[in-house]
């Protein structure tokens, strides 16, 4: 049993996250699952679990965010993931800066002022090449477990240039590189670089204010963090649960 005063649910394209916060806004409870095709059923099930978890029977606010926020019929409020990620990260790290959120289906760069308000943002929601999907697709193609993609890329200093700017073409380019005998590690390093260069272009449109902060599932990939630091020269800071920041921010908005 946990003291939960508000819930936030982040319905993303690859995962669904639910977070409960206590009266002080601390992250008190959470669950993370792969997204199921029947989102409404999954949300109902997760809410039942949350209901059993909370210590009181009182009805509490539920704020929905993420790509599928409109499908959370039980939500008392719906807020975009941009506002929620900014809120969650600011509450945990307690400072402004530039937040990079690389999700499964889109990526965002959010400028947060010293008071925690969103100043500006840029989004890549049109092309998979700047998102987690880019890495996922290649992981599948190369038969490298997703969580190993970053470590494998960092295991070498050699790097192959991936010139295609589109996920589909990059996949064929990777296959052709393998066929020509390029080392997997160097290919993966080049692939990460290509993604990071896209993210850096977005950072430039918003304007980099140090520190850089990372949220979203891809933040757990160590190559992303390292290369972002290399490309920008700015330190990169991660919250404790980068993947939960959207749901956490949503829950905070319910308080």
């Amino acid at each position, binding site marked *: 049993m946990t003291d939960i005063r508000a819930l936030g649910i982040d319905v993303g394209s690859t995962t669904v996250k639910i977070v409960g916060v206590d009266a002080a806004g601390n992250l008190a409870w959470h669950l993370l699952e792969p997204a199921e095709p029947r989102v409404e059923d999954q949300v109902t099930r997760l809410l039942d679990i949350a209901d059993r978890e909370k210590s009181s029977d009182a009805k509490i606010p539920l704020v929905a965010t993420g*790509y599928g926020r*409109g499908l959370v019929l039980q939500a008392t409020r719906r*807020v*975009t*993931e*941009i*506002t929620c990620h900014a809120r969650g990260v600011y509450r945990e790290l307690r400072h402004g800066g530039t937040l990079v959120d690389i999700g499964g289906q*889109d990526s965002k760069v959010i400028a947060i002022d010293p008071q925690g*308000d*969103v*100043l*500006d*943002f840029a*989004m890549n*929601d*049109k092309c998979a090449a700047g998102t987690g999907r880019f890495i996922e697709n290649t992981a599948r193609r190369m038969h490298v477990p997703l969580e190993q993609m970053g470590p494998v890329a960092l295991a070498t200093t050699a790097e192959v240039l991936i010139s295609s700017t589109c996920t589909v073409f990059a996949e064929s380019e990777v296959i052709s590189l393998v066929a020509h005998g390029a080392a997997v590690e160097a290919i993966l390093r080049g692939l990460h670089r290509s993604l990071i260069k896209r993210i850096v272009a977005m950072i430039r449109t918003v304007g980099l204010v140090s520190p850089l902060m990372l949220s979203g599932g891809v933040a757990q990939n160590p190559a992303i963090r390292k290369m972002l630091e290399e490309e920008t020269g700015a330190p990169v800071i991660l919250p404790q649960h980068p993947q939960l920041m959207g749901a956490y921010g949503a829950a905070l908005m319910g308080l």
Partner: protein
Amino acid sequence: MSTLALPRRSEIIRAHQAHGGRIAAVLPIHYPRALLRAFDILPVEVWGPPRIDPSPGAAHLQPYVCSLVRNALAFLLAGELDVADVVIVPHTCDSLQGFASILVDFIQPKQPVLPIYLPRGNRPSDLEFLANEFRALYRALAAITHCTPADAELLASNAREEHADDLLAELHRRRNELAMTQLELYRLIRSREYLPAEMFIEIVGATLHGYSAQGDHPGSPRQNVPIILSGIVPEPMVIFDALAEMRAVVIADDLASCGRRLYPRGTSADPFVRMAERILNAPPDSTRGGAIPERLEHLARLVATTNAKGIVFYDVKFCEPELFYLPTLRQGLQARHIPSTVIEFDLNDAFSQQARTRVEAFIEMLG
């Protein structure tokens, strides 16, 4: 009266033809309505249209030509413009100029295709050039219709259009007093694309007269985040309902199809010069070569006078005149602390979840 009861394009076209009038299919954006009406030709504008099968048009065009031109060509090839006696193509951009060339050189539709070249500036020589373009258009229309309206008839037609445009400007200005949704308001504004001026005057006059009471109502900026909508054309129109759901209100617009066509009255006694004056003195427009500082000033003034909190640039993908200058324009706005965001759309797209998230996040940021 409810704007939802607006007559449909097809009804207006049929009614105009029934009394012997002709129809002109007019591509965007600026053209002399008064000149066409003096020949009893009703201009009916073709902004795409949205959500049609674009493939017949796409076969003739490069993939980087905007969806407005692609759809217009598909529409014409499907025979949907057969109702028109003449097709008028203003030289708004390279894509539309290419469209006119394809029609004239290859497709050769059954109707005459008349281009209008627009100058890229507002100097005395530009005025003279545009007036001469309209004189040439007069001669072409005279050859088609065998009519030669006198100057007095041209000026009378001009006066009617000026009256309609005065009311259009009043509709824009008094939008917050009207008990109608944003979608209804923009349907009414956009009815200028096909309604004869006299009918527009009647409908808008009654609307402005009927809803002059002050108070809280669906469009009130007091409860919502006021924004300015910029771009070419607000399609799909559900964007206005989506904005209302996000608690945002379009307090003014800089849309080429709407606010950039608030033509002021002309002053010249020469009807052609007067028509040209009206277009050249309209709000700055990228498609007429409006310089960035001039557009920046205009947008900043709109923001200041309406207390708008930000600008949404809602642009057609591959719209070269709009997108080319956008980065510099936005930099200028940023320097003046005016937040802005850009959404690109294709005329055949629904209002996507991604576009909705962008706009909604922007509204949350402003709110």
